[in-house]
């Protein structure tokens, strides 16, 4: 797996990155790089786009055409890029706030269109960048700077939402289960259609500290215990299912890809025009 050339995908002069020591964002970013490599993407033809957040800083460290957009809008920018040049491989990096709060609408519509973009959501259950406000994926009851008495909001299962919205490839894993994560991203990239990979991760600085969950290691141990392979999860008792969450490939389905459809439309109307003209 280790590629001696993996360094070529990093902007090494921009490293070390700004993330906190032990932040899972680095692990996920490394996983994306390996997945791009495994999937065999042409580095020149790959565009990485993010929104705003700690996660949003990832593209700055990656040696592709990279775009750090506005909060929540990465998928809309990426949709424009992909439509304009379907030959480009699009990777979108988003956070749970960026992608599931302010960017929720672009997410569900990208899923619906089944446009060939691979989205990786760095889900740390908190607004990291802005110092720890709760996000749509913050567990109910947890503390956050805007939930000083415990969060009363219900936690989004974003993968589930993406599936219902029409994503044709959905997977979830964690910063602990990095090998699985790499494989899910790799296959998401290879998938012809919209793929969504939820990368569950730890933000010990903002989320962990406020909720007494310990450091990166403790939080990763928690992931290890609580994220269960889909099949194993299915065999759990109802009570256990309340607590534990699934990981692995959650959905894979074939449906015609959006830019393919548009290119076919162009062909069709141009052919019609020729006949008429």
């Amino acid at each position: 797996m280790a590629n001696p050339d993996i360094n070529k995908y990093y902007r090494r002069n921009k490293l070390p990155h700004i993330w906190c020591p032990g932040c899972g964002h680095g692990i996920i970013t490394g996983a994306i790089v390996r997945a791009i490599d495994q999937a065999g993407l042409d580095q020149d033809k790959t565009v990485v786009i993010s929104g705003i957040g700690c996660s949003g800083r990832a593209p700055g460290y990656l040696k592709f055409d990279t775009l750090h957009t506005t909060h929540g809008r990465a998928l809309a920018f990426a949709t424009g890029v992909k439509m304009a040049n379907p030959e480009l491989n699009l990777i979108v990096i988003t956070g749970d706030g960026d992608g599931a709060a302010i960017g929720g609408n672009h997410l569900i519509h990208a899923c619906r269109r089944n446009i060939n973009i691979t989205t990786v959501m760095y889900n740390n259950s908190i607004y990291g960048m802005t110092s720890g406000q709760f996000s749509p994926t913050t567990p109910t009851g947890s503390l956050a700077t805007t939930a000083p008495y415990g969060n009363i909001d219900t936690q989004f299962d974003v993968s589930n939402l993406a599936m219902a919205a029409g994503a044709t490839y959905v997977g979830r894993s964690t910063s602990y289960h990095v090998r699985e994560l790499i494989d899910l991203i790799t296959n998401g990239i290879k998938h012809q259609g919209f793929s969504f990979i939820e990368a569950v991760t730890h933000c010990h600085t903002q989320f962990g500290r406020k909720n007494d969950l310990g450091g990166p290691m403790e939080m990763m141990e928690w992931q290890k215990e609580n994220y269960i392979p889909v099949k194993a999860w299915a065999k759990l008792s109802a009570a256990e299912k309340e607590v534990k969450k699934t990981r692995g490939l959650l959905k894979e389905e074939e449906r015609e890809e959006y830019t393919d459809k548009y290119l076919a439309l162009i062909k069709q109307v141009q052919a019609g025009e020729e006949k008429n003209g």
Partner: protein
Amino acid sequence: MKTEKVLLQGNEAVVEGALLAGVRFFAGYPITPSSEIAEGFSRRLPLVGGKFIQMEDELGAMAATIGGSLAGLKSITATSGPGFSLKQENLGFGIMIEAPCVVVNVSRTGPSTGLPTSPSQGDIMQTRWGTHGDHPAVVLAPSTVSNTVDLTIKAFNFSEMLRTPVILMLDEVVGHMRENVLLPAADAIEIIDRKRPDGNKANFKPYEVKGHDHVPPMPDYGQGYHYHTTGLYHDETGFPRGKSEDAEKLMLRLMHKVDYYRDEITLVEKKYLSDAKIAVLAYGSVARSAESAVEMARNNGIKVGFMQIKTVWPFPEKEVAELAQKVDKIIVPELNYGQYVREVTRAAGGMAEVIPLNRFAGQLISPATIKEMIEEED
């Protein structure tokens, strides 16, 4: 190339002008009175191999339009007031990262939902100041269907030349009216394309300026430049360092590039000014009424002149100051509560009296109304 006369709606003229300018991507969200632009592109673009996408909202439409531009296509979006308000954040992003594209605002009577099918020029200050923070703005306002074709082409040219979003502000009158127009032949129009870098990819700095015009060359995504872009203040490499020096340098460059091309992009028409003591200054559809009012008044022997501002932003400081020096009074008719007249007053600097003439509730201003005011002020 067809050059016969055709009957075109103003909104259709945007489509025709854009196609002549080489547009290949449209992303939008429908809204009255701009929807015919989206509809026209949905029909025409695939015929030339271009792409049309209807996005989930205007925020997404603005984002996708910038995305299309970064991928290398001439890109456009169209909306009206409510949608234009929604586009502001991403419009500012486009200005900051210097993404050429054209944003059409076919304006209707606001605020809010207002009078959706009535004309207005109530967004004229918003086109300048709508997004947060300092930023340059380039805004063109046609008054006829025929100059909608021309100004759409120019909007693309300016945007490519300056590497900045250009706003094309049609008011509802211009957007919805039909007129006979002679479309220019494709080979008769000047087309400007963005500067692209020279192919040297090692140590490529996406925001490094080579010439005098403060405009850095721009690669297409996929050409192997591997460059970074962000809405944060950045240095020549495209990366943020969080430093005031970088911010200062970048903001100055964003402003200076517009200053540099100022004469080229400032489109102002003057008429009957040589002997005038009064002038009427107008833009957009009102310029039509103004011009005809001036002609009527001249026929009655009044020494009145006319200035049409086609490039409403950057504000034509010099031209207006000269005008104020020349005449005693400047009448500024507008379809709003009195917006652009503030700028005219400022630029006139007390040298001429500046008199607003406003209709702000969806009505047009007729030539007769303007003529009356000319007569009053004479």
